[in-house]
């Protein structure tokens, strides 16, 4: 198509495009067989189709890690950046182009270890985006090193005698940051819940933090094993304001009522790590969103020159 034709094209109203899941699918994902990242990819593609998001207006930003390969497998815009720094990049994208749908994909090392400062501050900025923490409790890409979320005592290549400290709980930490506005947990092996959670996260106006428990059959095949095999080890948070994943009632009989407006209870529920709790821990739609600072009228070049000339007067001799 020539340059002039493409101009014509832009003028067309293409709102009548209908997107199938395939429209969001990039090249075949190169994760290990059985890797939980595959399910998240599928859920994300399903969400995009469900919401009919335009591929060209959607940006997946990631850091470095197995999970951070995510954008390469989407047929949207993607930014595969550097380790730990996905959130500042995503913030920049959103400050510049608030109209874009921005998703951030991070691993547990990426987000909770090297990216910790950006994570804490992104929660506070509360910029409207969906942040996915793909938590396999290990460093996958670099081949099995301890991550902050590795269970205490679990052996890795850097701590062969077992991780020395209790695992960091990302939900608790997130809930401790002033201006947190959406905090949920789901698991990639419960696709219905995963999808429902992504949907709620996307619907939320603000920074939606979703921790996704993710299996890494290559390095931590055992970690989520029990919870995967035994639904009784899983507890679903339920509430009219919470995340509803229809069809799970039968399988997951352990359920607990939790009002996502109650941050104190949210923290208590998040803290206890004896059961795997899935659902919406906290949501507050009224928190200020930082990108609102950017909601400034557009100025033409001529306008700007006028104001600049006026400022020059202050400095004129």
């Amino acid at each position: 198509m020539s340059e002039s034709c493409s101009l014509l094209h832009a003028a067309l109203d293409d709102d009548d495009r209908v997107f199938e899941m395939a429209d969001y699918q990039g090249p075949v994902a190169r994760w290990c067989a059985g890797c939980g990242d595959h399910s998240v990819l599928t859920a994300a593609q399903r969400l995009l189709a469900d919401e009919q998001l335009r591929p060209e207006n959607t940006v997946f930003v990631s850091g470095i890690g197995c999970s951070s390969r995510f954008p390469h497998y989407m047929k949207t815009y993607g930014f595969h950046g550097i380790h730990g720094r996905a959130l500042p990049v995503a913030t920049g994208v959103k400050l510049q182009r608030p109209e874009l749908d921005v998703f951030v994909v991070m691993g547990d090392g990426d987000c909770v270890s090297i990216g910790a400062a950006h994570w804490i501050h992104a929660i506070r900025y509360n910029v409207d985006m969906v942040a996915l923490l793909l938590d396999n409790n290990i460093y996958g890409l670099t081949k099995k090193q301890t991550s902050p979320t590795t269970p205490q005592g679990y052996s890795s290549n850097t701590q062969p005698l077992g991780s020395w400290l209790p695992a960091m709980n990302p939900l608790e930490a997130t809930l401790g940051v002033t201006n947190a506005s959406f905090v949920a947990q789901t698991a990639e092996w419960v696709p219905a819940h995963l999808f429902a959670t992504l949907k709620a996260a996307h619907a939320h106006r603000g920074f939606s933090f979703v921790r996704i428990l993710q299996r890494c059959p290559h390095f931590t095949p055992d970690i989520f094993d029990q919870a995967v095999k035994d639904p009784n080890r899983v507890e679903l948070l339920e509430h009219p304001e919470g995340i509803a994943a229809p069809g799970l009632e039968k399988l997951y009989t352990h359920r607990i009522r939790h009002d996502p407006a109650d941050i104190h209870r949210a923290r208590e529920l998040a803290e206890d790590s004896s059961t795997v709790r899935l659902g919406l821990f906290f949501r507050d739609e009224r928190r200020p969103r930082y990108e609102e600072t950017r909601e400034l009228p557009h100025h033409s070049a001529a306008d700007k020159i006028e104001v600049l000339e006026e400022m020059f007067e202050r400095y004129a001799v």
Partner: protein
Amino acid sequence: MAMKLPTVGETPAADREVRVRTVSDLSVEVVSDSGEGAQKCGQIFGAVSAKMGNGVWTVEIIPAEVEPPPRSPAGASGIRIRLGDTEVTNWGDETDVAVAFNEQVLLGRHRLGGLREGATVLLESMWKTHPDPDIQTQYRAGLEELQEAGYRIVEVPMEEQCLTVVDNPRRGKNMFALGMLSWMFERDLDRVREQIAQAFRKKAAAVTERNHRLLELGYAWAADHLGERWVVPTMDEDRPHLVMNGNEAVALGAVAAGLELAAMYPITPATSVSHMLGDVFHRFGGVVHQAEDEIAAAGVAIGASYAGKCSFTITSGPGMALKTEFLGLAIMAEIPLVVVDVQRGGPSTGLPTKVEQSDLLAALFGQPGDAPHVVVAPATIEECFHVMTTARRVAEALRTVVIVLSDANLATGVAPFPRPELLPAWQGGPPEILPVPDGMAPYQWDPRTGVSRRFLPGQAGGEHTVTGLAHDERSKVAYDSSINERASAMRSRKLAAFASTLLAPDVNGDAEGGDLLVVGWGSTKGAIEEAVSRARAEGLSVSSLHITFLSPLPPGLAQIFSRFRKVMTVEINYSDRKGDPFVTETNRRRGQLSWLLRGATLVDVDCWTRVMGEPLRPARIVEALRDHMPVAELAAAGAEVAEL
């Protein structure tokens, strides 16, 4: 004509002769404890002088602490104004006339070598009779030290005088001093009054009125008591000028360049750019994002650039260090980005408020891996304004990082420059979000120039994932080794192509050649060129050349160098001196530019550098030139041989 001026601290009598001297160049300073308003006094004096048609360069004297203890030599806070009968391009040498609100801050300035021998000093005399006997003692001792140094000290009862008009003389002495200076330099009092009104326009009208009275009081006192006046002839200049410092120029330059997002984390001496933008940017639809750290600031700027118009980030050395990894990503993923580094003294925390030019090599080579990008250094305050447009344009045209190297000298120096005639084109258009023609790739490198056109989110058909991994034209991760060779070549090619558009720099002095060519970069231009003029006036065959683009280098350097018997750089960074213990030609640490030029041209480029935490003084450069003249060096070598 015999002078009646007392040379040792004593208030002069009212009946005396007044000597008027015409000079083409003179520096004045006002020093005080911090918070006493010396800076305001000097700013007004400088602005009026500029308006009257003098060349002016103002530089603030800033103590290291936020609120240093009063009456301490290290706490000297103030301002220095250099006046000239033509354009003034640098802070000059020592101060000729100083007004000091106490003897301790003056001692501070004296001990740093800030005052010229024989300088005239107007010193507040109240300390002589201060109720605290310790202070009296200090004052006497201080006076003695200063007197021994040979200054012409005039004791002025500033406080006493001010008390006739105000209750709290701490808030008025500066205007009294302004009055004295106005008399001494024959400033147009109406202009001074006007400038005072402008400076205090946000305060109550009574403030201006009171300040006018103090001004007049100082003027009258000086007229009654002082015996020296100076005339610095003025120029006729029709073109309108602006007076501001380099950081203000960068801030307004960023606006003129159409930049709309400044991501930063506070750091001296860069922060004031964001203070200025914080005040005004929203009026242009712009945003200052103060990030949680310098890494995030770079990340936000890169994210914003990726999604649309080029953004920028601004910092100083320690912040540059933190941005290193992100710069590599922007270069690899070909995301335009402007980075302003306002250099300070290093390494590490170093001398946070002081000037140095020692980030050059780190700016050029700091990123692990081969990371070609552009480095440009403005040399004047005016260039601080214009460089921002250049930087944005080059960053966008080449899809790469442009590092702008300013420094603390430019950041805080204030001087007039021709008011820019703003063009809409400088701002660049808003990015076009059009569908991408079929078959176009996100890195469709022009094989000759390495340039390609980027796709922005929103452009249908252009969906792709940028990555810091080695990648091919379609931004696919490269598993094949030859792809990396090709992409590396393309990223490098952009610089060579850009270099071909640069002009060989002009020689200041004698383009035909001569004994010595001095090469500089960045903020030292004014001082170097002034030194070269003086040296040429002495009959030395010296010329100079200033380099604006450090990466890529401009063409023609080797040819120009070949016309001189010797080439040397003058820089504010560290170099071993010849003859230092253990130092050899191979292992000598050299001025950073000289290093670069040697590698590029294979000419034996020598260097003279200093890291004294202050801008270079032209007189010191002249000395260095004398020492480094090929003939002088030969003579020195000869003398050494003779001694053996």
